């Protein structure tokens, strides 16, 4: 970057939640008091808001660059800003105790950032900054020098596969759509992102909305669509605002609208807000929702590429899929395909969460072994516990056990062990997680998000959940495992849409790899991970109890007795195993077994 001083403040949703807004205000104030002129303008000193770089756990993250030397600070709060300005910005002396540690660098250095490359660097609300990183060059080149068929060929050659879950080759899908005779075609960006814990697409739209728009322009040109929609959930207010702003800026510059880049090609992009139903991420339900109908999937074929929105050929791609397109057009198919595995090219953005040291948003080359993601990028398991399994692919993915730690993470690898890439969620589980409880947890989500249209999903997931619930409550019966397996397979094989087809995955995979835990619950009425309260006995360790009485207060059935300052006791015949005492005790004197 140019000489001078640049201060970047993380203003993604994570950054703002941690106080990024106030930190920003504080910087402006301090700059003004210190007499730094034009604080927010590109001059000598630039104050700059940037999107999410993936490490929200450390927010508010602030980069201060002095003469090309970048220092990154973590956990910055408004009251710390004064010292930063005085000592670092004005005094050129970094405050070492606030800087990020090695783990921050390990987290980033083991990633390959393509889609996320500019997140955390450019101001997502400024089209100039996007133009500064070659923004809209790819669209211009494509529209002015290439035929639509050529564009599709490049995307095919790149090997890019849909990042929304299915992993269908993007170029091939585009060619299906383009092959239809039609007076009107549509292009839709799927930014519904309903998986719990997933925030890949939100971060990309918040951090670099123009990349998504540019990808859509190129896609629309390739298939011959003159109208596009971004279907984005209303619960993403910041992303929606930035997207609308970016669309406005792009229109003002003539990148959207009529006769783009002097060609005859026109494109209008509209924003459609989703009301927060997971199933509306499914492409046919999404189309119904745009049409003003209830978001319920319909049977395929016909596929949207042939008969989609308002019955016209329609392409739906995921946010991340579109965000890859400009780079592919700029740098070529071969460059794109140079990383990744044999059948899965490029990178994948993953939301890494659970019992892991470095939780956050990461981007890895396809095919990276699971263990590198967990132990390098993720920094290993939290609290020195034992790694047990990882759930990939969101609520409808599968649980992958420890024995597959060397598995390459790509579409084929994950599918080979009964899981899936999905949209890229990864939840790491350790020895304190009960697998029956985990599969119950995921099923609770899919069951309540089923649209209710088809029988196996509407009633079948409910019954699966009921059986799992009774197992975790000690009411499991002989034969329940087999019943779960049969029903799970039947729901998978006869449901209408991807939601029902994949909802049983957590059940199927946990029974496959952790059958002994199910058996322990059913036969021995024990929860090996000590999670399912109904299977545990609660008691108080006399030597640890200080007699504060908090447990007795918390107990709703008065099962705990004891004099003040004397060790308390639980009457197990009255205890309903709710676990309130366990949570209430500040001295870890309540134990469960």
């Amino acid at each position, binding site marked *: 970057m140019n000489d001078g001083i640049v201060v970047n403040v993380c203003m993604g949703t994570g950054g703002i939640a941690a106080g990024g807004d106030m930190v920003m205000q504080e910087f402006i104030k301090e700059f003004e008091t210190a007499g730094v002129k034009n604080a927010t303008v590109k001059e000598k000193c630039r104050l700059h808001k940037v999107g999410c770089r993936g490490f929200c756990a450390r927010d508010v993250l602030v980069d201060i660059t002095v003469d090309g030397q970048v220092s990154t600070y973590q956990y910055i709060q408004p009251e710390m800003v004064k010292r930063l300005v005085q000592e670092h910005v004005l005094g050129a002396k970094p405050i070492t105790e606030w800087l990020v540690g090695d783990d921050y660098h390990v987290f980033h250095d083991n990633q390959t950032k393509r889609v996320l490359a500019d997140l955390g660097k450019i101001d997502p609300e400024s089209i100039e900054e996007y133009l500064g990183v070659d923004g809209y060059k790819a669209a211009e080149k494509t529209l002015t020098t290439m035929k639509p068929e050529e564009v599709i060929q490049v995307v095919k050659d790149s090997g890019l596969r849909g990042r929304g879950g299915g992993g269908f080759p993007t170029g091939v899908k585009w060619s299906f759509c383009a092959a239809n005779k039609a007076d009107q075609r549509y292009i839709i960006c799927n930014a519904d992102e309903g998986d719990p814990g997933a925030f890949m697409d939100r971060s990309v739209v918040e951090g670099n909305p123009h990349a998504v728009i540019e990808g859509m322009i190129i896609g629309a040109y390739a298939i011959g669509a003159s109208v596009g929609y971004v279907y984005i959930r209303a619960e993403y207010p910041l992303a929606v605002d930035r997207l609308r702003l970016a669309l406005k800026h792009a229109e003002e510059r003539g990148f959207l609208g009529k006769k783009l880049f002097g060609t005859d090609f026109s494109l209008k992009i509209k924003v459609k807000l989703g009301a927060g139903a997971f*199933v509306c991420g499914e492409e046919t339900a999404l189309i119904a929702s745009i049409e003003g109908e209830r978001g319920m999937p319909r*049977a395929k*074929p016909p596929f949207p590429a042939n008969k989609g929105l308002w019955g016209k050929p329609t392409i739906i791609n995921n946010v991340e899929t579109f965000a890859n397109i400009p780079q592919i057009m700029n740098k070529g198919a071969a460059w794109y395909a140079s990383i990744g595995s044999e059948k899965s090219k490029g990178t994948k953005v993953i939301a890494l969460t659970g019992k892991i040291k470095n939780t956050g948003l990461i981007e890895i080359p396809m095919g990276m072994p699971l263990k590198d993601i967990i132990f390098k990028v993720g920094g290993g398991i939290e609290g020195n516990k034992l790694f047990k399994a990882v759930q990939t692919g969101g609520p409808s993915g599968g649980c992958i056990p420890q024995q597959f730690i060397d598995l390459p993470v790509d579409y084929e690898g994950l599918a080979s062990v009964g899981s899936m890439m999905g949209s890229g969620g990864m939840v790491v589980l350790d020895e304190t997680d009960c697998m029956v409880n985990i599969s119950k947890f995921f099923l609770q989500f899919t069951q309540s998000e089923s649209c209710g249209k088809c029988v196996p999903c509407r*009633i079948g997931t409910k019954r699966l959940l009921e059986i799992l619930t009774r197992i975790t409550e000690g009411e499991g019966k002989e034969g329940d495992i087999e019943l779960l397996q049969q*029903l799970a397979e*039947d729901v998978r094989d006869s449901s209408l849409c991807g939601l029902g087809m994949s909802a049983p995955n957590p059940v199927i995979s946990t029974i496959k790899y952790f059958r002994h835990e199910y058996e322990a619950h059913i036969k021995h009425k024990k929860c090996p991970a000590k999670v399912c309260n109904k299977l545990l006995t609660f008691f108080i360790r006399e030597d640890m109890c200080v007699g504060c009485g908090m447990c007795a207060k918390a107990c709703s059935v008065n099962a705990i007795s004891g004099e003040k300052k004397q060790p308390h006791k639980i009457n197990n015949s009255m205890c309903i195993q709710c676990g309130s005492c366990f949570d209430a005790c500040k001295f870890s004197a309540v134990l469960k077994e």
Partner: protein
Amino acid sequence: MINLTIDDKQIEVAEGATVLEAARKLNIDIPTLCHDPRLKPYGACRLCIVEIGGMAKPVTSCTTPATNGMVVKTNTAKLYRLRKTTVELLLSDHPNDCMTCIGTGDCKLQELAYAYGIRENRFQGAMRDHNRVDVNPFITREQNKCVMCGLCVRVCEEVQGVGAIGYAERGFEAKVIPPFGHDLKCEFCGQCVSVCPTGALSGRLWSGKPRMAGVKFTDTTCTYCGCGCNITLRSTGDQVIRIDSKPDSHNRGWLCVKGRFGFEFINSADRLTTPLIRRQKGGEFEQATWDEAYDYVAKRLSEIKDKHGADALGGLCSARCTNEENYLFQKMFRARIGTNNVDHCARY
């Protein structure tokens, strides 16, 4: 034309036909619950699934277009298992009160339970409770018996063009309701009742009347208007207890509120059963035979015509008559009586 193979039999169908249509052409029986050939395919019940060569998973035959060279299996062990699970799931969330249900004998779910021999249920569990009583004059809605086939919603939208009902809630609690869960307030054509495969929707007038046993079915024509919709009367003794219409009639089984629900007059004690003649001014009506009545009318018409001329007469006919009857009526006035004073309440 498209050629495909279903259960080792060859069949030719027109472009755009579904696999289900092709199978029906071969008289292959595939169970369906949410399908009605008069409505757009929906694919919700998952009973019509079939296995198709080259496709990884079973697909619904009611929604899948037939293509050339397709090889279809409709009755494998796997399909049997999946269908049975589906029926069992439906029954696990069903009141199972066939003994007292208006739908008995006329219920697709009951037939399926019978066909798959389901008595014990592996999936016993929670049941929906949607039995809000809908206060309206014609239709009884018992939503706990609803299998969510969507036929009622689709017929109301696609055929009647009214859209009086739709879906609410998600997952297990999903249900069919009028807007905001209010009472039904619509045309009451009862199209929805006619397509409901279970006892979830029924006519109020049918309540407590015999269901199947001892019921006589008589095909006839609706008398309400000149359309002449085909109807089937259900009767016991001399009482008409219900009106249906068959899907293969010229009105495709669709009726209006009058045709479907307006039949109580048939059994009314006030109904005239013979012609009545008032022989003297100020006198009482007296019962007469049809011959007497016709003679009387002809005599009076002739007298008036002779005395005052043909234009002193005029004829008004009814929309409840057929085209043919209306034609004859005007012919009688124009050609026989000799006046153009003839009209009709609907003039169509």
